[in-house]
């Protein structure tokens, strides 16, 4: 099992550009999450999904969009990138039986 994979690992965007952060899990988990982590801070929930076709906002959803067309994939879309979106983005999948979350390696995004 690869677990949770994220691409790309690093990205630099210019203000106003758009991009999609990819996240895939191979553990057949229903729950998936996107977090952002700013330096020295904990993780903030952006969006989450409890199953294919179902998504909902977290604490900090503004400037982001998600979709969940399959159990495996949960891409995060940034439209009109802003410097405030410079952060490390983590995707996680959740096992609803054990209430455990499994995190990907993260994407480090810089917006200049």
């Amino acid at each position, binding site marked *: 099992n690869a677990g949770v994979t994220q691409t790309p690992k690093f990205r630099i965007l210019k203000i106003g550009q758009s991009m999609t952060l990819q996240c895939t899990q191979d553990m057949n988990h229903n729950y998936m999450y996107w977090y952002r982590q700013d330096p020295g*801070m904990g993780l903030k929930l952006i969006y989450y999904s409890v199953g294919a076709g179902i998504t909902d906002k977290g604490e900090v959803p503004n400037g982001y969009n998600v979709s969940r067309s399959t159990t495996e994939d949960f891409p995060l879309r940034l439209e009109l990138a802003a410097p405030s979106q410079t952060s490390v983005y983590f995707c996680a999948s959740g096992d609803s039986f054990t209430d455990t979350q499994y995190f990907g390696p993260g994407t480090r995004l810089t917006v200049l």
Partner: protein
Amino acid sequence: SQKIEQNSEALNIQEGKTATLTCNYTNYSPAYLQWYRQDPGRGPVFLLLIRENEKEKRKERLKVTFDTTLKQSLFHITASQPADSATYLCALAFSSNTGKLIFGQGTTLQVKP
């Protein structure tokens, strides 16, 4: 809104001693509380989960306590080793239907040989 506080200052201890990290929360009691370990440049890794009706959980050298009256969880690492040096994150869930977590800012532990 719910607030979670962990010691923002780094904790420095000598190898072999017990490290104790604190997680305090306000307002409502969570359905369960989790502790994660995060190494620099990596994603968090799950360590332990304790539910609202449990007082204590153990796993090898790790122990978690949960006091809903004090609104506090303590995380202990006994016989600490330099390899235990990392940032430890506390996370609370208020619903088991979604698995949504609210994270503290983390405490960095440094174990000196």
